[in-house]
């Protein structure tokens, strides 16, 4: 009786699974649409155009979803089931009636040294000497003026190189890509020279993004420094230190301001808000979602025992959450500037 009951329940559970078979469209909306747009037009992420899809295999798409692009915005989704990944790919494929290409997984033998010469002459202008792209973020240029309408892929990325086969790289080199304006190398390079470029591209692989090492240090969520001075003096010293560090200051706000009437909010918790426009300019180009961290601020609070704390976000840690190595490198400099200002204010 008990066994049959267990079996019935298990059957019921499995029927739930069948009934809730993955819906590719819904999963695409949930995981992909924010960056790749409704029909793969691209935005924060690269376009999933019909032309591009005609040159990549399902295996490439599957690995791309699973591995993401470490340090290059696209997150990895290792937790999605095979059926879920397949349904997302099926949905993307449904936008086009073009045949799905397949590629051999065999290694192409080429001379990487010779390939480097051709790569630097033909490819580096867009993909950069180290294959990292051109240093202005990813996706499609919309509101931001950048060097390209579609940012060249970081072909040194481990997620990319672990997803693509040699034959697929070869196909991309010789394909005529109207969508990204990537010219075909067919006729410009011999078959052997193309194989040499494939070998060289393979050699560019970067093991992991720079922020991975930093995360191993288990950084603190926020920077908290106790001030030796009273609240008013600390606020004034912080204002002066930020101005001296070439930050432009914006009107100050209390943490609780706007959430309760002005007679109730705590005026002993004040946020100094500031910006360095040249850093902001650089950062917004490479990461349009940066606004969730804006404006830069440090907060000064007086605790019940009258001790005073200066609190700042740990910009290096926060930037690592964007999976954007370019952003992380700028945040390192920003962190140093903010830490110097705090040190100055608490001297």
């Amino acid at each position, binding site marked *: 009786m*008990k066994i049959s*009951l267990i079996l019935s329940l298990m059957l019921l559970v499995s029927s739930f699974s069948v009934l809730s078979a993955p819906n590719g469209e819904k999963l695409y909306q949930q995981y992909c649409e*924010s960056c790749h747009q409704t029909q793969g037009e691209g935005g924060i992420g690269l376009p999933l155009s019909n032309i591009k899809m005609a040159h990549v295999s399902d295996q490439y798409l599957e690995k791309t979803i699973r591995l993401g692009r470490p340090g290059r915005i696209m997150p990895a*989704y290792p937790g999605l089931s095979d059926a879920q990944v397949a349904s997302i790919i099926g949905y993307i494929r449904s936008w086009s009636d073009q045949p799905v290409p397949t590629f051999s997984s065999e290694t192409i033998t080429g001379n990487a040294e010779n390939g480097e010469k051709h790569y630097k002459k033909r490819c580096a202008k867009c993909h950069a000497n180290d294959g990292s792209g051109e240093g202005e973020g990813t996706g499609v240029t919309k*509101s931001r003026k950048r060097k390209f309408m579609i940012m060249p892929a970081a072909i040194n990325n481990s997620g990319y190189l672990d997803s693509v086969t040699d034959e697929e790289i070869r196909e991309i080199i010789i394909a005529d890509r109207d969508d990204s304006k990537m010219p075909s190398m067919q006729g410009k390079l011999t078959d052997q020279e193309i194989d040499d470029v494939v070998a060289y591209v393979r050699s560019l692989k970067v093991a992991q993004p720079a922020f991975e090492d930093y995360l191993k240090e288990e950084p603190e969520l926020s920077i908290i420094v106790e001030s030796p001075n009273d609240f008013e003096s600390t606020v004034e010293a912080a204002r002066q230190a930020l101005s001296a560090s070439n930050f432009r200051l914006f009107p100050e706000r209390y943490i609780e301001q706007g959430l309760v009437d002005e007679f109730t909010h705590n005026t002993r918790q004040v946020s100094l808000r500031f910006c360095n426009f040249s850093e902001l300019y650089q950062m917004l180009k490479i990461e349009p979602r940066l*606004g*969730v961290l804006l404006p830069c601020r440090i907060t000064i*609070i007086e605790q019940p025992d009258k001790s005073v704390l200066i*609190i700042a976000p740990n910009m290096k840690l926060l930037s690592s959450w964007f999976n954007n190595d370019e952003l992380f490198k700028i945040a390192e400099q920003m962190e140093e500037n903010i830490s110097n200002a705090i040190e100055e204010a608490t001297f």
Partner: protein
Amino acid sequence: MNRCLKLFFVVLLIGSSTVSHASEDHLLMVRTQQTFEIAMEKIQRLIEEYGYSVAHIQRCDGGLNDFDYETDYYRVIFFGKYKEVKALSNDYPELIPFLPLKFLVFAENDETVIVSLDPDTLADYFDNPDIKHQLRRWHNDIDEMFSEMRI
């Protein structure tokens, strides 16, 4: 019978937790085909419907045109619940840089993208189950608001 039921719920629990941890992203995002103005209006209404107050809206376009941005549509909405913000800012100063909560709203041509840091990401930095629970509640509320933005 009890054992059977326990087994049944354990199986269900495993299934549901696999789904909720499918992504390793630290940001919550939604794209809506609504124009920027309509999306701004709707997300503020949802914030209020979920019991939060909009503290203020930061225009980030003051100098953006000078920075080669062609759009004026880039805003940060600060929102929260007074009692929660008051209690957490007193008890957990390290949370202060994340208070009040924030939504970034920006236009991409005729569509609008809304982004938030995932509060669940912060849970790794706390041992206290109460604060973990609070962060999960925020995550769920934001997730539901974003689902409604898709409609």
